[in-house]
């Protein structure tokens, strides 16, 4: 093995044993200082206190409050409307009426069936007229001929 090692030295002897790599100028001269600076920075990191450092807690709190409002209150108000004035606002959305017949039609659209019947019974102008047999005979004679009466039977 020793002999072979001498051969090796001979075979590679014509090759330059100096490494073909270079380094930046003054690299080793400044290495120690750069290293010590890095060690000091790791062991005693410097913290510069800026205005942001002092405002950070207040800004964080403000941001949290805004977020809660956006995530909680806005959807609740939009999808589950409650509170005073809602019905009034809905009624205010109905267009103004010009005549009595339009008023009654508007009332009918707003009321439930029960409410409507109660309202009608309380309103004088809507008291139902009783139908007499004479009225009925007059009506039929005016509106139907004999053929219509017989064919419907």
């Amino acid at each position, binding site marked *: *093995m020793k002999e*072979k*090692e001498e051969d*090796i030295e001979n*075979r*590679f002897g014509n*090759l*330059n*044993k100096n*490494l*073909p*790599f*270079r*380094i*930046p100028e003054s*690299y*080793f001269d400044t*290495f*120690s200082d*750069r*290293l*010590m600076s*890095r*060690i000091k920075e*790791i062991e005693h990191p410097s913290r510069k206190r800026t205005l942001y450092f002092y405002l950070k807690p207040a800004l964080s709190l403000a941001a949290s409050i805004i977020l809660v409002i956006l995530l909680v209150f806005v959807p609740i108000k939009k999808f589950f409307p409650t509170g005073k004035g809602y019905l009034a606002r809905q009624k205010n959305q109905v267009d103004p009426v010009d005549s009595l017949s339009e008023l009654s039609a508007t009332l009918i659209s707003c009321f439930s069936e029960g409410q409507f019947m109660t309202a009608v019974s309380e309103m004088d102008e809507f008291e139902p007229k009783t139908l007499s047999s004479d009225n009925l005979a007059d009506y039929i004679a005016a509106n139907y001929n004999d053929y219509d009466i017989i064919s419907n039977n």
Partner: protein
Amino acid sequence: MDLKEKEFIGNLKSAGNREKAFKVLVETYQEKLYWHIRKIVMNHDDADDILQNVYLKVWKNVDGFREDSSLYTWLFRIATNESLSHLQRQRKHAVIPLNEISDYLTGSLESDIYFDGDEIQRKLQMAIVKLPEKQRLVFNMKYFDEMKYEEMSEILQTSTGALKASYHFAVKKIEEFLKQDHK
């Protein structure tokens, strides 16, 4: 380990003298360590990073140094391990997947702006890069650093017999590579 070195290690471990002793340590071994690392990773920027990390490790762990080897051996062992770990990380995190570390090193060598050799030296470096990890380490330490096998054995924690075999195989492979290149 001689008395002078024991005293020096004592200074490194004492809080009052540590910084001064550490600066001496850096200035004493920085060049040898740098070139050892540079031969492994090829690239100057990588070598600079690794050299700093080696000394940082020494700074942090000097109190745990058991003094079962010389300071020099300990430093070189850290440098070798850091360099090899760096190469493994580069291979794993490469943008284009690399099958071998030699792929990364070939690319590093070709793009290195601090490479200053002639064509023959470039070919030799390309041949060295293609060697398996252990053979590459042994070849560099034996051929360029002219280190004794006993010294290498302490650093690499491998027997001298295995190191001699590694060197022998490394030389054969480099010769074959250079012959193929000539054809």
